[in-house]
C-alpha cells in the first residue's frame, strides 16, 4: 500500500475540528513524554524508531484499522523510514512533513472578531507550542502583538489583507520563545514597543511602553490601551483593545495563571502577580474578552480554534483567580512549579539582543512545550 506526507496545516485542521487520528510517535520515550502533538480525539503509540529498524511486525496489532495513522518523529527522516515499512506491510499511513520541527513552527490564523469602524482582530495559534500572537487591523494599518520569530507568517498575512504593519508590541520579555518583534519592526519600519522594566538589559532601540499609553491603529479610533500588570515579569503589560478585548500576555490564561519565576525569583514577584490578578484586573469590565499569549492544554481551545473567554467567566472558574488566602496563593505559585521551558535563559538573552543564534539553533532552543503557567 502507500505512505504519504501530511502537512502541519492539515494536521492543524484535525486538531481544531477535533477529528480522530492515531499518532505513531517514533521519537525516544523521554522526548515523547516531554512534548507531543495534542488533539482531543487523538490516540497515541510511542515506539522509538530504533526499535523498529529490524521490522514493524511487532506493532502491527497495536495499530487501528478504522482511523488514519500519522507517523511522527523529530525532523521527518525516521518517520519516513517507519511509514515506508508499514506500507510494505499493507497499510496506508501518513508521515508528518518536517516532523515536530515543522509542527512547532506552524501557526494557524483565526479571526477572533470585528472591531468598531470595520476593524478586525486575528489570533495566530501556534498549536505545536501553545503560543498565541495577535494582529489588530483597522483602515489599512496593523499592529502585531507578541509575534513569534516566524515573521513571514505576519508580514505575508498583512500583505494578503493589504494592510501596513505600523506597530509591533511585546507584552513582556519572553522566556519560552524567541520574539519576532524586533525583526518585523526592522523589515517594515514599524515601531517596536517593549515595557521598559523588562528592557533594562536590551541592547537595541525600542519605544518604551508605559502604563496608560494609547496606540491608535488606522485613522479611526481602534485603540490599544496599555495596562501595567506585573507578576510574570516585572514589566508585564496588558492591552485593552477597542474596549472589548483584554490581551493578558503571560499573566492570565484561560485555565491557569502566569508563573513568576522565569526571570528571577518567584518570591520577588508573587506580590505583584497577586496585585495584578486580584486587584488591577478586578477593576476592569467582566465583559472584556481575555486573549492570552499562551494556552497549556488542548481543552482551552474553543470550537472555532480560538483561545478566548470572558473575564467574568475566568473570575468565576479559573482556579488561580479564586484563592482567597494569600499564603496559599504564594505557595501555589512558588512551590511545585512545572519544569522551566527549554533553554529559557538563552531565549531571554536572545530576546534582549545579547545572543544571536542562527536559525537552526533558535529552533532547537524552542523545542518543547511553553510551560509559562501554574495551575
Amino acid at each position, binding site marked *: 500500500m502507500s505512505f504519504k506526507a501530511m502537512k502541519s496545516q492539515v494536521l492543524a485542521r484535525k486538531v481544531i475540528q477535533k477529528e480522530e487520528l492515531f499518532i505513531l510517535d517514533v521519537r*525516544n*520515550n*523521554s*522526548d515523547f513524554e516531554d512534548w507531543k502533538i495534542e488533539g482531543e480525539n487523538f490516540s497515541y503509540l510511542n515506539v*522509538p*524508531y*530504533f*526499535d523498529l*529498524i529490524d521490522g514493524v511486525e511487532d506493532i502491527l496489532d497495536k495499530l487501528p484499522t478504522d482511523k488514519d495513522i500519522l507517523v511522527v*518523529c*523529530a*525532523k521527518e*527522516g*525516521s518517520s519516513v*523510514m517507519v511509514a515506508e515499512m508499514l506500507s510494505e506491510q499493507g497499510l496506508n499511513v501518513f508521515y508528518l512533513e518536517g516532523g515536530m520541527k515543522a509542527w512547532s513552527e506552524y501557526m494557524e490564523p483565526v479571526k477572533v472578531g470585528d472591531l468598531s469602524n470595520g476593524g478586525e482582530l486575528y489570533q495566530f495559534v501556534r498549536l505545536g507550542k501553545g503560543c498565541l500572537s495577535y494582529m489588530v487591523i483597522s483602515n489599512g494599518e496593523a499592529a502585531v502583538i507578541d509575534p513569534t520569530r516566524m515573521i513571514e507568517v505576519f508580514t505575508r498575512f498583512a500583505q494578503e489583507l493589504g494592510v501596513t504593519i505600523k506597530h509591533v508590541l511585546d507584552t513582556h520579555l519572553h522566556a519560552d520563545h524567541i520574539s519576532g518583534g524586533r525583526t518585523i519592526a526592522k523589515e517594515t519600519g514599524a515601531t517596536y514597543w517593549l515595557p521598559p522594566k523588562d528592557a533594562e538589559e536590551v541592547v537595541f532601540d525600542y519605544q518604551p511602553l508605559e502604563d496608560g499609553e494609547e496606540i491608535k491603529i488606522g485613522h479611526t479610533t481602534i485603540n490599544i490601551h496599555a495596562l501595567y500588570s506585573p507578576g510574570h515579569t516585572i514589566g508585564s503589560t496588558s492591552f485593552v483593545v477597542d474596549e472589548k478585548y483584554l490581551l493578558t500576555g503571560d499573566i492570565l490564561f484561560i485555565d491557569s495563571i502566569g508563573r513568576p519565576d522565569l526571570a528571577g525569583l518567584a518570591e520577588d514577584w508573587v506580590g505583584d502577580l497577586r496585585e495584578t490578578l486580584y486587584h488591577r484586573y478586578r477593576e476592569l469590565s467582566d465583559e472584556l474578552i481575555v486573549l492570552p499569549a499562551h494556552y497549556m492544554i488542548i481543552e482551552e481551545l474553543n470550537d472555532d480554534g480560538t483561545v478566548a473567554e470572558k473575564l467574568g467567566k475566568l473570575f468565576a472558574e479559573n482556579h488561580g483567580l479564586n484563592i482567597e488566602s494569600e499564603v496559599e496563593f504564594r505557595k501555589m505559585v512558588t512551590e511545585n512549579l512545572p519544569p522551566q521551558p527549554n533553554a529559557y535563559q538563552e531565549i531571554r538573552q536572545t530576546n534582549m539582543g545579547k545572543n544571536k543564534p542562527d536559525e537552526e539553533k533558535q529552533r*532547537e532552543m524552542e523545542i518543547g512545550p511553553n510551560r509559562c503557567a501554574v495551575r
Partner: protein
Amino acid sequence: MMEAVKVLDAKGLACPMPVVRTKKAIEEINSGEVLEVHTTDQGSKSDLTAWAKSGGHELVKETEEGDVFKFWIKKA
C-alpha cells in the same frame, strides 16, 4: 578506557541513519568490545543514548569536538 575495535564515521548523516549504521556496526563486533561513533546530527545525541540503553549496551563515554559528537559504546 578500553580501545575501540571499530570506528564508525556517521558524520553528515541525518536521522535515522546514524542509529541505523551504529546498530549494524555493533552487530559486527563481539560482546564487551567498544565501538566508536562520530556524528554531526544534533538529534543523534539523545537517540544514540536512548538506543544504547534500550539494547543494554553501555555508553562508556561521549564528547563534543567542534561540530562532531563522539560516542564510545561497549557492546552488551
